[in-house]
């Protein structure tokens, strides 16, 4: 998947309405610079597709310890609540939320282990 689609802030409001424009910085997906060839692939991919929140978060919390500090974990999820809850979990647990990218169904979230 192209890292260019990844945004640091996924749409904060799932189910966004047609014709409704958001001016708030941070409410619109912000493009992040494309990862160069030196950007490593995620050290671990967790497939939480089809799982309702909080299961994707539980799976991430259980397994983030399997990667080394500074490495990233990719979480695949399609529950709309994941778009809010993945970044919120990262903020609460002081891990780095790298970004989100849309998949044909659901999203790919990238989280970097900070400690």
């Amino acid at each position, binding site marked *: 998947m192209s890292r260019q689609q990844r945004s640091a802030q996924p749409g*904060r*409001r*799932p*189910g966004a*309405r*047609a*014709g*409704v*424009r*958001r*001016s*708030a*910085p*941070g*409410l619109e997906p912000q493009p992040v610079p494309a990862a160069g060839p030196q950007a490593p692939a995620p050290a671990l991919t967790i497939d939480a597709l089809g*799982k*309702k*929140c*909080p*299961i994707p*978060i*539980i*799976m991430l*919390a259980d397994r983030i310890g399997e990667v080394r500090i500074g490495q990233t974990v990719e979480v695949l999820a399609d*529950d*709309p*609540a994941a*778009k*809010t*809850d993945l*970044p*919120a*979990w990262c*903020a*609460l647990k002081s891990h780095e939320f790298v970004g989100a990218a849309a998949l044909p169904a659901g999203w790919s979230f990238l989280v970097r282990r900070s400690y």
Partner: protein
Amino acid sequence: MAYFDAASAEPLHPSGREALLAALADGWADPARLHREGRRAQLLLEQAREAVAAEIGCRPDELSFTTSGTQSVHLGVLGAVQARQSATRGPGHLVASAVEHSSVLNAADWLARRTGTEVTLTGVDHTGRADVAEFAAAVQRERTLLACLQSANHEVGTLQPVAEVATACQEAGVPLLVDVAASAGRLPVPDGWSLLAASARKWGGPAGVGLLAVRKGTRWREPFPSDDRENRRVPGFPNVPAVLAAAASLSATSRERPSADTALRALVSRVRSEIPRTVPDSVVYGDPDARLPHIVTFSCLYVDGEALVTELDRAGFSVSSGSACVADTRQPSHVLAAMGALTHGNVRVSLPRDVRPASVSEFLEALPPIVAKVRETVRAANAAAP
């Protein structure tokens, strides 16, 4: 048993009940008729209007009774925007904070779809407080027809900067609709509004009564077929007994406010400080000080909101939740999402006026083991899943 969902519906105030029963006997007739029974209903309706207008700080002829807070918002938003739209100057622009009640967002969405009105939803900080600078910048945009801001947030209780936003709107010449549904009867109505919406069941009035006030000089045009009821703003025969009950409840609630406010505020402070200590991986949301007296919202990690609400109900505690699995829409709360807050495992506790302090203590005792139990169940169910 403890009812902790006053932010959805406060139980009917005893003064409201008394007024309702009296008005069912005296105020049942059509207030538009000239006969004796009609005149009596009309007199009662106008007495209620004067009492409510005095409480919210407006002239009686500025105030109309609607059938709900949602209808008040819909009529207020559509009527104010459509009065200022024109074929030559285009469908215009509407501004609202991202954490408004769904009735505001739905009305904005309706305008966007039907008339092409551009809608800007402005951001909030982590407590849910609207960003004044961003809101002020948005209303300065050309052809801004209306701005909407709530007095306080209905999910997390944070007070909104209505005074600052009202000043910005005034400077930009933009009318401001203030939705006071969450705070009416609990806090004084803020100044600076052009249109005002509220709902009686949130202050201990009966369901089925809302308020719509339109300040003199604010342009407003009926967005739906109208008749001569309620200053041509709300069509149909008004529910006079329910309106009288709403007025009586509001007067009583306002009189009792100083003591009730102090008691509820202290109980909510206790909930706010205890939950993070007793429930691991929990977080309390909203402004700790600039908030409504009776609402507190928190989220517990690794818990599903529906299971939590169900277990609390089983234990005798009635609460609501902004988690997707509990919401009517199956979408997580747009308020929590705009704040960047955790939407799963969410609980809103909103204390009714007559809450027993002991029931809050019982809740604080019951919560940690219930969260632990739901966490175990969620994990076990996931482990068993294919």
